[in-house]
C-alpha cells in the first residue's frame, strides 16, 4: 500500500463514525415538529451541549488556520485568549443565557423569532432573516476551504480539492437532513473530541522533530525571524489599534450571536445549563489553540518564506513531508471535524431561517410541520451546494469573507441586547434597522476600502473613504461605533415596540435574572 492509502483509511473511519453518530437512534424523535428538528424542544443537558457548543464554535480557523496565523504573524495570535475567554464569560454567560430564557419561555425557533417578538412582525422578519443569512454564506464558504485543502494535501492530491469539498458536503447533507440539530450536535460532540486530540497530538509530534523541544524551537525562531516572538509581528499586523478592536469586536462579540449560536442556546435544557457552559467552555476553547503556536513555529522552521495561501498551507505541507501516513490521517480528520462541525450547525440554522422566516411567513402559511421540515431539508441541500460551489471557485478571498461575516453579524448586536437586557434606553424597530444598515455600510467601507477585485472582464477598485488612522481599526468596530448612536437617535423619534410585548419579555427576564427575594 502507498502511504496516502493509510490517510484515506483513517479519514474513512472518521467519516463512518460521524455518519453513525449523526444518524443513530439517539438522534431520532417521535414528534414531527419544527421546534424539535431545527432545535431540541426538551433541551440538551450540560455535557452534550458543552461539547456541541465547543466544537460548533470552532471553524477551519482552528485547523489549519490558526497554525497558518502563527506562521505568518507569530505571537499576535495570542489575541485568541481575548476571544476564547471573553466570548464564554461575557457573551455566552450574559447574553446566551438570556436567549435561552426567552427561547424556552416563548418557544422561539430562529434568531428572528426573538427579534420580531419584541419589535413586531412584518417585513422586519424577512429583513432580519435575509440579513443574517447573507452574513453566514461567506463564513460557511471560508470554513470548508481549509479542511478540503488539508484532505487533498494529506492524500498527496489523490483526492482532489473539489472531491474533498464534495465529501464534506455529502456527509453534512446526510446527517443534517436525517436528524436536524440532533445530528448536528451529536456529531459535533464527536468532532470536538477528535479535533482536540488531533491538535494536541500534532503539537507533541512537532516537538519530536527537534532535539531539546520547546527551547530549541524558541532559539531557532529567534535566530531566523525574531519578529514572530513579539507584537506587531513580521507583517506589522498587531498594531495597538488592531489589538484594541479585532479580538473583541472582530470575533468575541459576533462569535456567539451567529444564528447557529441562537439554535444552540434555544436547545439548552434550562438557563442554568447555558450559564454553566459560559463559565466553563472557555477552558476547552483556549486549550484548543494553545498547541497551535508549536505547530505554526515548527512549520516556519522547516519551511520558511511561504506567503499568502502557501503560509496557510504550511501545516499540511509539514504533515505531508514528515508525518507517518496514519498520523497525517488522524490530523486531516481533525481538520475535517473543525470545518464540518461549524458547517453543519450553520446549515441547520440557515435552513431554519429560510423555512420559518421566509417560506412559512411569506410563501406558504399554515402548512403542517411535516411539510416545513421537508422544505427545510431541501434548503439544506441548496445551502450545502452553494457552499461547495463557492468554495470551489478559487477567488482568494477567504480571510476577507470571514471579516465580512464578522462585520455584518456584529451589527445585529444592539437589537439583540435591546431585547435581552432590560435597561432604561429606548430601542425601536426603525432605530435598530437604520443602525444595522448604516453600521453595515460603515463597516464594509472600512473592510473593502482600497481593495481591488478581479472578476475577469470586470475589475473593481473600492475607493478608500476612511482616513488612514481610522482604517487601522477593525471593520466590525467601525460599524458598531456608527450603528449604536444612530440606533439610539432614530429610536428617540420613532414608534416604540408594543408595550405589552415589552412587558411580557422583560417580565420573563426579571423573573429569571432579577427574582424578588423570598
Amino acid at each position, binding site marked *: 500500500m502507498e502511504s496516502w492509502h493509510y490517510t484515506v483509511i483513517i479519514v474513512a473511519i472518521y467519516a463512518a463514525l460521524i455518519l453513525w453518530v449523526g444518524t443513530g437512534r439517539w438522534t431520532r424523535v417521535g414528534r414531527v415538529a419544527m421546534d424539535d428538528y431545527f432545535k431540541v424542544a426538551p433541551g440538551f443537558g450540560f455535557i452534550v451541549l458543552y461539547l456541541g457548543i465547543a466544537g460548533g464554535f470552532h471553524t477551519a480557523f482552528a485547523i489549519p488556520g490558526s497554525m497558518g496565523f502563527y506562521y505568518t504573524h*507569530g*505571537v499576535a495570535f*495570542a*489575541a485568541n*485568549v*481575548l476571544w*476564547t*475567554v*471573553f466570548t464564554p*464569560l*461575557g457573551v455566552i*454567560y450574559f447574553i446566551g443565557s438570556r436567549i435561552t430564557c426567552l427561547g424556552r419561555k416563548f418557544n422561539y425557533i430562529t434568531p428572528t423569532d426573538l427579534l420580531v417578538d419584541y419589535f413586531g412582525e412584518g417585513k422586519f422578519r424577512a429583513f432580519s432573516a435575509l440579513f443574517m443569512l447573507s452574513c453566514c454564506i461567506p463564513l460557511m464558504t471560508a470554513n470548508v476551504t481549509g479542511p478540503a485543502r488539508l484532505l487533498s494535501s494529506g492524500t498527496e492530491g489523490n483526492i482532489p480539492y473539489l472531491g474533498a469539498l464534495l465529501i464534506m458536503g455529502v456527509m453534512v447533507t446526510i446527517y443534517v437532513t436525517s436528524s436536524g440539530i440532533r445530528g448536528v450536535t451529536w456529531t459535533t460532540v464527536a468532532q470536538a473530541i477528535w479535533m482536540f486530540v488531533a491538535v494536541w497530538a500534532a503539537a507533541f509530534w512537532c516537538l519530536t522533530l527537534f532535539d531539546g*523541544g*520547546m*527551547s*530549541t*524551537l*524558541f*532559539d531557532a525562531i*529567534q535566530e531566523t525571524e*525574531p519578529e514572530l*516572538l*513579539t*507584537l506587531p509581528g513580521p507583517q506589522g499586523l498587531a498594531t*495597538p489599534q488592531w*489589538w*484594541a478592536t479585532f*479580538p*473583541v469586536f472582530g470575533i468575541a462579540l459576533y462569535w456567539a450571536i451567529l444564528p447557529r449560536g441562537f439554535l444552540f442556546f434555544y436547545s439548552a435544557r434550562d438557563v*442554568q445549563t447555558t*450559564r*454553566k457552559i*459560559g*463559565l*466553563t467552555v*472557555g*477552558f476547552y476553547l*483556549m486549550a484548543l489553540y*494553545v498547541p497551535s*503556536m508549536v505547530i505554526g513555529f515548527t512549520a516556519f522552521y522547516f519551511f520558511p518564506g511561504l506567503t499568502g495561501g502557501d503560509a496557510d498551507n504550511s501545516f499540511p505541507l509539514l504533515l505531508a513531508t514528515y508525518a507517518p501516513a496514519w498520523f497525517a490521517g488522524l490530523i486531516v480528520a481533525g481538520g475535517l471535524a473543525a470545518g464540518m462541525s461549524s458547517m453543519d450547525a450553520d446549515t441547520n440554522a440557515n435552513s431554519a431561517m429560510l423555512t420559518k422566516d421566509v417560506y412559512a411567513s411569506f410563501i406558504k402559511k399554515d402548512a403542517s410541520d411535516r411539510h416545513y421540515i421537508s422544505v427545510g431539508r431541501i434548503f439544506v441541500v441548496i445551502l450545502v451546494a452553494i457552499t461547495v460551489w463557492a468554495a470551489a471557485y478559487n477567488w482568494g478571498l477567504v480571510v476577507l469573507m470571514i471579516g465580512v461575516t464578522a462585520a455584518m453579524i456584529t451589527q445585529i448586536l444592539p437589537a439583540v441586547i435591546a431585547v435581552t*437586557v*432590560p*435597561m*432604561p434606553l429606548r430601542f425601536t424597530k426603525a432605530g435598530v434597522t437604520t443602525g444595522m444598515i448604516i453600521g453595515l455600510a460603515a463597516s464594509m467601507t472600512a473592510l473593502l476600502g482600497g481593495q481591488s477585485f478581479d472578476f475577469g472582464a470586470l475589475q473593481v477598485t473600492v475607493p478608500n473613504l476612511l482616513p488612514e488612522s481610522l482604517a487601522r481599526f477593525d471593520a466590525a468596530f467601525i460599524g458598531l461605533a456608527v450603528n449604536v448612536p444612530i440606533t439610539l437617535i432614530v429610536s428617540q423619534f420613532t414608534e416604540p415596540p408594543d*408595550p405589552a410585548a*415589552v*412587558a411580557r419579555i*422583560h*417580565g420573563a*427576564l*426579571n423573573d429569571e*435574572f*432579577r*427574582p424578588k*427575594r*423570598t
Partner: protein
Amino acid sequence: MTESEQQNHLVPRTLWEKLYLGWFLFCFFMVWVGTWAVNEPVAVLGMPLVYVWCSGWGIVWLFGCMFFGLKIEAAAAAAKGE
C-alpha cells in the same frame, strides 16, 4: 410595566455579580493592555513571554470568573427558594 419600574440589567446587583464583573474587567485589561508592557522576545519555559502572559492571564480569568459565577448561581437558587 412603566419605564420607572423597569429594572436595569446592565448594573450588577449582588456582591458576587460585582466581583464577577470586576474580575472580568481586571483580567481583560491585563491581557488587552498589559501585554504591551511585556512585549519582549524573552523565553519562559521555552515559550515566548507574550504567549505565556496572555495564556496565563486567560487561565486566571477563567478560574476567577468560574468561582464567582458559581457563587452567583448558588445565591440565585437560594433567592428562588430552591
